[in-house]
């Protein structure tokens, strides 16, 4: 009887706490509806009664009580049984019953459960994925849970890059209206994915922040801070305490041990990078430059840095301004009967600066940050800026044309297209620097604003549209576009 009393006390607290607490309309979306609470309460009392009857020998009440307990705590059953077994359809239906977990977006929560179950299948079933996508498309306006489920489906298909990009955007879609579970689980997936790749700095960054985090996320974040040697890393004792209260202790034990073995104040290890030594033994500086060019081409692009590119540009500056280079080209032009040696030299200089720009781009090196009086580097910056600007304009023009002609995509596909273009813009200014960012932003702003206004006014996609307004406002503040700041400041609704 004491057990039953405790059960009803806990139940009352769970039921009446959300009703007592004053919440604004946005936060209400995170909590179950009053109708759900009422049904759940009745079911809970009935279950209590059934348990009491079962305890006094009415054995038929045992399976009835079990069924009622599943209906009362569907997320527990889904997470513990249905998802590990890969039963996606059942997981979607049962998981979608949990109003306490998903708030008012139980349908979205069901999608997350279904997609997660597909991830757990030995061979992810395409028919189940298609079924889940059909259910998602019928749900109407985009929600964060739908975005998360779509990301998990991309992961199930093996497209991890897309999955990361999509799941990274979960926090942007209706942050104040999304249940904590969606934020926490999305963050956990990202952290686990980064940990698997050994990207510990990313793990620490992802685990940080104000939003809800699972205990596993916090543990991995603390581990990552130690492994990456970040300031503010927790002590070993704190790490072990965090490990004790987290699930999957068996699997994270060796990782915690490895992290605690790392000294918190370790010095930055200098990583030896292969360098080509320049000598004066080459026949002439033109051959030296060509040799450096070949060497740089042959290296793994991911190992190139700003110094390598700048050094190559410097070597070419010397070669191209060397009188012996000019003399050789003129001589050969005369022998071959070419019209002009100057044309050949100009073509050579153009080719060199183009190559330097392409090498910098392949290596992700932001040569726009380089200042100096290197002619080759200045030309390479010019090529790179023009190429990037053309690409951005072409890509965003396609989106703009679609918005003008009202060629709608499904909500999730609108979001995916926006994320892809935004990633292109971010990669471009990563290479092109702040100057490029300020140059490209007006075009980006015009296109994305047009799309998001259409989504808001005519398609009632408020969460998605508001997320775009928010990003435009942040970006406008960074580049200092006063007009855009004013416009997006009026467009963006901070209560969503």
């Amino acid at each position, binding site marked *: 009887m004491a057990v039953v009393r405790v059960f009803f006390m806990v139940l009352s607290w769970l039921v009446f706490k959300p009703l007592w607490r004053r919440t604004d309309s946005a936060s209400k979306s995170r909590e179950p509806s009053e109708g759900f609470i009422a049904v759940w309460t009745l079911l809970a009392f009935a279950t209590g009664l059934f348990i009491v009857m079962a305890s006094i020998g009415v054995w038929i009440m045992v399976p009835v009580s079990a069924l009622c307990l599943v209906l009362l705590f569907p997320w527990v059953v889904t997470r513990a049984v249905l998802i590990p077994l890969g039963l996606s359809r059942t997981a979607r239906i049962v998981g979608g019953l949990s109003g306490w977990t998903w708030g008012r977006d139980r349908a979205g929560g069901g999608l997350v459960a279904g997609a997660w179950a597909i991830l757990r299948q030995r061979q992810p079933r395409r028919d189940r994925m298609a079924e889940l996508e059909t259910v998602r498309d019928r749900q109407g306006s985009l929600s964060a849970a739908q975005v998360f489920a779509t990301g998990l489906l991309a992961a199930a298909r093996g497209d991890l890059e897309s999955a990361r990009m999509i799941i990274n955007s979960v926090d942007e879609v209706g942050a104040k209206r999304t249940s904590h579970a969606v934020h926490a689980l999305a963050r956990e997936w990202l952290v686990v994915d980064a940990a698997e790749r050994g990207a510990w700095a990313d793990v620490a960054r992802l685990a940080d922040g104000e939003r809800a985090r699972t205990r596993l996320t916090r543990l991995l974040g603390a581990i990552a801070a130690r492994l990456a040697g970040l300031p503010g890393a927790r002590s070993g004792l704190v790490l072990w305490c965090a490990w004790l209260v987290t699930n*999957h202790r068996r699997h994270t034990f060796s990782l915690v041990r490895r992290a605690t073995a790392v000294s918190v104040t370790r010095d930055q290890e200098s990583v030896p990078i292969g360098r080509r030594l320049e000598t004066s033994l080459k026949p002439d500086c033109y*051959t030296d430059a060509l*040799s450096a060019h070949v060497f740089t081409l042959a290296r793994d692009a991911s190992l190139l840095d700003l110094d390598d590119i700048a050094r190559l540009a410097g070597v070419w500056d010397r070669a191209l301004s060397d009188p012996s280079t000019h003399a050789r080209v003129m001589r050969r032009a005369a022998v071959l009967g070419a019209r002009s040696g100057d044309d050949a030299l100009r073509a050579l200089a153009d080719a060199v600066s183009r190559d330097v720009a392409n090498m910098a781009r392949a290596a992700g090196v932001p040569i726009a940050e380089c200042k100096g009086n290197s002619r080759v580097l200045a030309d390479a910056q010019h090529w790179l800026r023009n190429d990037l600007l053309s690409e951005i304009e072409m890509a965003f023009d396609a989106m703009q044309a679609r918005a003008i002609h009202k060629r709608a995509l499904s909500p999730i596909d609108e979001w995916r297209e926006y994320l892809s273009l935004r990633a292109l813009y971010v990669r471009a200014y990563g290479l092109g620097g702040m100057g490029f960012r300020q140059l490209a932003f007006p075009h980006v702003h015009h296109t994305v604003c047009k799309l998001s206004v259409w989504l808001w006014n005519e398609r009632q996609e408020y969460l998605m549209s508001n997320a775009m307004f928010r990003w435009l406002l942040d970006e406008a503040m960074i580049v200092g576009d006063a007009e855009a700041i004013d416009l997006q400041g009026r467009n963006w609704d901070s209560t969503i």
Partner: protein
Amino acid sequence: MDARDPSRRIAHNPFYILGLSPECSRIEIEREGQKLLGMLQVGLSAAKTYTSPLGRHERTSDRVREAMAELRDPEKRLNHELWARLSPAHMPNRLADPTAAASADNRGGDCDTEAGFRGAGARVGWRR
């Protein structure tokens, strides 16, 4: 030539395709070109590849004909000469870079256990 790929200028330089030095005469170009076409026609393995400072590449009849055509034009020949000054055997040392292993994409199956949390997704229940 694809302006986006810097290596093509060297790897597919006509002088390397024909195995000639930049100072060769027009007669040598024609002679060598015809010889290579004949060898490729009968399938001789010695003609199937050529070397540039960026490594070994496949030699095809189309590439040989294209190289000969490029070198017949004085303007184009001059441009190609400027990129063919290194001997084909001048291959840069591929340095045993200790950072190369750490830069590999750790996808939970191929990585060194020291780098990442191997199999994290499967261990904590995010996939099988």
